[in-house]
């Protein structure tokens, strides 16, 4: 294994994107993800890439559309309010079946909100990235190493399925430094015969477009796209199980909430409480089969979130009434302490399920 270096999560994303072959970055600064743009500004000119600070987030996402149309790897990054501005573009990317890679290092909302960490864009990322019927692959790293690994994986998935993949991180993941190894296997490049790269007068024009005025054609493209989504659900679910073998209580948490929960689980185990965790790494596709299976064994679930309770809806759908699901949360940039999670575990363990 190559030497480990200390990097901020944001920097790890940027370097991993470059390793993955991304040579086009478009963005607009916003805390807490600005290091991605700063890193790209420094590195891209040296490796023949393009760094461009756009005039707005909307401009940046449409530049992504442009480069994606030519089949090249391209990305943009922002934080919560900036992602809202990009949502029109995300819908157009989906409608045109373009691969793209987007990073959301979340901060507290709604509105301008604050700049401290949050996970309250879960709904937006997994269910409502923009108008129309579409999905994005949503990846939730819980370490700087995963920030890097899931970036490379995100580019691969985007190309493989011709869709957007998004890193849904938060301020702590972006700002923290941890040792990271940047020794990656890069997948074989995917052929992109659909890309608009010039016909050389040798083939028909390729058209990249999301406008389908004929309802029957538009219906067909939607049905076909959702068949592709079924394949993604079948093949691309990622999750980590932690101390689930004998668990009677299952915590569900991703990103920073999962890191905090691990401390609480260790403490709870010292007190003899059998608690474990399922950490979704893909938020879409959601590991619903894993939660459904866990519902056959455990007697209660606790969703630990930095939101008013968003992922908890997917857990309840997967658990399907077989066990109670309670929420342990902080919002607005606050993060639950391990003690708060431990209290929630103890409460559930003692039977106070609601």
């Amino acid at each position, binding site marked *: 294994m190559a030497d*480990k270096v*200390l990097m901020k999560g944001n920097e790890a994303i940027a370097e991993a994107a470059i390793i993955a072959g991304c040579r086009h970055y478009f963005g607009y600064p916003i*805390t*807490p993800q600005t290091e991605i743009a700063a890193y790209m500004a420094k590195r891209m000119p040296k490796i023949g890439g393009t760094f461009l600070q756009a005039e707005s987030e909307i401009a940046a996402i449409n530049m992504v559309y442009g480069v994606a149309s030519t089949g090249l790897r391209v990305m943009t990054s922002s934080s919560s309010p900036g992602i809202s501005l990009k949502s029109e573009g995300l819908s157009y990317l989906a409608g045109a079946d373009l691969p793209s890679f987007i990073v959301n290092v979340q901060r507290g909302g709604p509105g301008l909100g604050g700049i401290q960490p949050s996970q309250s864009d879960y709904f937006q990322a997994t269910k409502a990235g923009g108008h129309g019927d579409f999905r994005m692959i949503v990846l939730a790293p819980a370490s700087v190493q995963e920030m890097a690994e899931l970036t490379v994986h995100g580019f691969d998935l985007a190309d493989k399925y011709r869709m957007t993949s998004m890193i849904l991180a938060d301020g702590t993941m972006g*700002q*923290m*430094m*941890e040792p990271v190894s940047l020794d990656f296997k890069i997948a074989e490049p995917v052929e992109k015969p659909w890309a608009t790269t010039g016909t050389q007068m040798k083939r028909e024009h390729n058209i990249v477009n999301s406008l389908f005025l004929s309802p029957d054609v538009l219906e067909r493209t939607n049905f076909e796209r959702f068949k592709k989504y079924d394949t993604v659900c079948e093949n691309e679910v990622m999750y980590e199980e932690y101390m689930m073998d004998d668990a009677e209580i299952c915590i569900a948490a991703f990103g920073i909430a999962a890191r905090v929960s691990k*401390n609480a689980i260790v403490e709870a185990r010292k007190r003899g409480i059998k608690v474990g965790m399922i950490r979704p790494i893909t938020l879409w596709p959601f590991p619903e089969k894993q939660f459904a299976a866990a519902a056959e064994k455990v007697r209660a679930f606790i969703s630990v979130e930095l939101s008013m309770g968003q992922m908890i809806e997917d857990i309840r759908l997967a658990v399907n009434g077989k066990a109670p699901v309670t929420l342990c949360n902080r919002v607005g940039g606050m993060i639950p302490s391990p003690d708060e999670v431990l209290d929630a575990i103890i409460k559930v363990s003692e039977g106070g399920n609601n």
Partner: protein
Amino acid sequence: METTQYLIAGFGGQGILFAGKFLAYKGLTDEKNVSWLPSYGPEMRGGTASCSVIISDSPVGSPIVSKPDILIAMNLPSLDKYEDSVAPGGIIFLDSTLIERQVRRTDVTVYRVPATQMASDNKIPTLANMIIMGKVLAVTGQFDDEAGVTAGLKKVISAKRSDMLDVNLNAMKLGYNA
């Protein structure tokens, strides 16, 4: 399975994040698991800055230090804010040039280092952070191996500024002997 949680706090500009980075890199060169989490946002531009550093034999869970084993307080607001959070039996290092009051806790060990005054006397006014860091390493038994300290410093000081290596090392030695 040993884990040490550090919280370093002071004014923006005192080199709080740099001192934390040194600790993290030192941990990395010692082949430990480490995490470094800064406060970010407006406080970096003049207000209170803090950073959480965790060095552990096992993988680090939450990177947020809420009950530090070691608090390094570089100004009074930091001591006021974090004194109560220190784990029982923990250690508080404070810059006694800027903090006149005594520590109220009786279940912690306190080291008072006049770091800002020492930095000024030695004409290295920006290195109070590393002077106090020298004391931290001395007390925690991490200065025995000067090569390890230098290795950590080399990682945190960019090659372009390699002239700063000795200056930082000497600042730490001042703290070590304080």
